[in-house]
């Protein structure tokens, strides 16, 4: 220690070893990750023509990342969904699966962050917020979320008292005629919103698939509690879920094209008609197996069915079929989420991806070929 040069070398080495491990070592291990497909062939090669993930952000979103960085949003927001053992991020609905290194390889600014004063944003693009909502939130979060301490950026907007084209009503009063604050997003604001919308890890990778939290017993209780409070107090719901339920309710009750007309047969109270139309309220079909529920929603159901130990005979056409105006995956997901959380029901949500997965697995089935209970049972046992 008495020789400064020797000492300096030791001091240098203490750092050099750690750096070799954390940077050079880690780089060797995963520095050359490439985008890949969701599922690999047997020999671990990428199937021909498969979509590769992650995909790079649109150019405007990349510009938005720079703005996001320059405003220091990372001081309060992380962009990483932790593994199941490390925390309840997935249960919180912050992602369908934990984030993995591959998700970030195409990002220029990797802003994992390590403070969560605000929620994680790794999947903010999946929470179903509209551009308008995001703009209002960026302008002043308190308009939308009472008591929010997310930091406002009013300097990114042109504010006026008059309504004009392209302006967003940013008053507490939703009615355009009463409102006195209208904002017009600047270029930078648009970039940030595009960036936020592009943040989503909505694909599976060979090393990480989606995590079903909803069907596990212990988390089921939590979900029940969540929806339970939601009825008394909408604030208790995560916004994406509240949105899905609101949209589902609309589809359920709308009998004009674009709606699902469910209300016409199953009635507003979800009780149906004895013997002919089965109830949805506390029905074991609604609360049970998601896949079965999605299947009958797409293709329909006919013949004799047993719901809550009662027999019903009738026909329900699938809402996915091209007669009239079919519902798309998102709409089916919404309406099913709604009926699973209305009346006495409260269980997990159904996502458009889940609907799509079922639709894809049944793509050879004719859209007009309705299911029967017997067929569903057979299919289930053959699996």
């Amino acid at each position, binding site marked *: *220690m*008495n020789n*400064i040069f020797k*000492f300096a070398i*030791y*001091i*240098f080495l*203490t*750092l*050099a070893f750690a*750096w070799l*491990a*954390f*940077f050079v070592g*880690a*780089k060797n*291990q*995963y520095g050359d*990750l490439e985008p890949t497909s969701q599922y690999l062939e047997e020999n671990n090669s990428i199937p021909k023509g498969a979509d590769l993930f992650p995909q790079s952000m649109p150019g405007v979103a990349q510009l938005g990342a720079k703005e996001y960085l*320059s*405003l*220091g949003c*990372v*001081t*309060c927001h992380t962009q990483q969904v*932790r593994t199941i*053992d*490390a*925390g*309840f991020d997935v*249960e*919180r*609905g912050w992602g369908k699966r934990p*984030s*993995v*290194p*591959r998700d*970030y390889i195409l990002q220029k600014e*990797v802003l*994992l962050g*390590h*403070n*969560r*004063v*605000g*929620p994680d944003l790794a999947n903010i693009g999946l929470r179903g917020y509209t551009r308008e909502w995001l703009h209002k939130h960026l302008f*002043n979060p*308190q308009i939308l*979320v009472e*008591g*929010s*301490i997310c*930091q406002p*950026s*009013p*300097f*990114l907007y042109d504010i006026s008292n008059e309504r004009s084209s392209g302006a967003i009503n940013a008053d507490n009063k939703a009615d355009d005629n009463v409102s006195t604050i209208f904002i017009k997003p600047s270029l930078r604001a648009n970039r940030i919103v595009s960036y936020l919308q592009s943040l989503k890890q909505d694909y599976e990778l060979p090393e990480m698939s989606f995590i079903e939290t909803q069907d596990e017993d212990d988390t089921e209780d939590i979900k029940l509690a*969540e929806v339970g409070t939601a009825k008394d107090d909408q604030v208790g*719901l*995560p916004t994406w879920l509240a949105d899905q339920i609101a949209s589902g309710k609309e589809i359920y009750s709308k009998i004009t094209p674009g709606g699902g007309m469910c209300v016409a047969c199953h009635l507003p109270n979800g009780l149906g008609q004895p013997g002919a139309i089965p109830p949805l309220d506390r029905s074991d079909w609604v609360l049970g197996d998601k896949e079965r529920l999605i299947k009958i929603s797409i293709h329909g159901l006919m013949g004799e069915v047993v719901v809550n130990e009662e027999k019903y005979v009738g026909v329900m056409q699938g809402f996915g079929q091209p007669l009239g105006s079919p519902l798309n995956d998102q709409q089916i997901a919404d309406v099913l989420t709604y009926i699973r959380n209305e009346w006495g029901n409260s269980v997990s949500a159904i996502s458009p991806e889940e609907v799509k997965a079922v639709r894809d697995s049944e793509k050879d089935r004719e859209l007009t070929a309705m299911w029967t209970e017997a067929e569903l049972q057979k299919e289930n046992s053959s699996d």
Partner: protein
Amino acid sequence: MKKTSEQQIDQSAKFAFSFFVASAGLWLLAAALLAYIAAAKLTDPLFLSSWEFFTYGKIKISQANAFVYGWGGNSIFAVSLWIVARLSQSPVRGTIFLIFAGSMWNLAITFGLLGILDGHMLGHELLEMPKEVWPALFISYLIIAFLILVVFRSRRQSVTIAPQWFIVAALIWFPCLFLFAWNGLEINAGRGTLQSILSMWFGQNIIWLWLTPVALGCAYYIIPSVLNRPIDKYYLAIFGFWCIAGLAPWSVVHHLEGGPVPMWVPAIGTVMSIAMVFPIAVASTNFHATAFKDISRVWNYLPLRFVIFGTLSYTISSYIGVIFSVPAVAKLTQFSIINEFHFNQRVYGFFSMIIFGMVYHILPQVTGKEIGTAAKNFHFWTSALGVFALLLAYLIGGLTHGVLAQQPSLAWINVIESVKPYFLITEFAFLILGFSQLVFVLNLWKVIVPNPFSCCEKNLEQKTA
């Protein structure tokens, strides 16, 4: 004979020391102001919100940088210069270069912070200042460190003691750390989360391997020299030193637990963080076993009171830090405002308190003028109160935050509502700290920058006498 040589050394250090301390003081005030603004914005987000310049993220990040590089850097230069010169019994040389490099350092930080506030920040922890200022910072640092090491090289005794190891090591660590990080972040930039590992590594190490060792070195210097007794169990110090050197660079990455990085990275970090109990125990035994043998002297000599406050806070909070790196606990608190607790305990509760003590100790010897006792006492008690309130609020607030965040059924806004009262406390704490530091800096400047009138009066008095 010995006295005169000490006086000569003090004289040689006077100008450079005063320069660094005076600039450190200004940065401290700047950081205190920024810290207060940031804290106020958490209680009222609309406060100053219409100016982009004052956006929370920018303020928060420039505060950390002003604190670490402005206050931390300048005060490190000041105290290391003086301690190294004193221990080597060798005068400071090249004052003019020190002043030149010091001005460059301060100018670069000023531009860097303006760059951050103007929206040009980089995304790496504590490397946020724009690229352009780093060469200037780095070169000016090298000049200063080189001149301090020159003094060290020309020391009278070849045997070195604990304060020298810590201070010299810190001086060498910073440029190495910077080069490693810069290489991996800008020159051979790794893709994806490799950047995050390295940025975390740098940002935490700058605290652990730059601020911390200098403060420890100060404590190893001042305690025995004021109390006039050797450090208790001094033979352990070398073990403590190499433990920090060997463990800290590995331990700092445990914050990545569960994140999108290879699992072994946070795993190593966790193990090494827990192993940090050894160096903490060593430093704590060394300091406190010595200090408590003559506690009345510690209490009565204010600089030492500051230093022992710092070392106690170091011990307690570092143990708390170890507890929070145990995976079961880390799961709760990983991303909560406990992180603010760690940062603030290290930079305020530990580093700054020790530096305050050192400045009060050195200043009279170098300038021959004392700061009034009342002012010093005011500074001590308000700092102690502020730090205590701040850390307690972040600790309890952090636990609340972490525990509630782990309940998926609780909407996020409700989690934040429960943490808000603690934000309010921190706002007050920063206000108190700001006042306390204002008093400190005003007095400091009064001593350092000679008031032309009072000096004339003195001369007159002397002549008439």
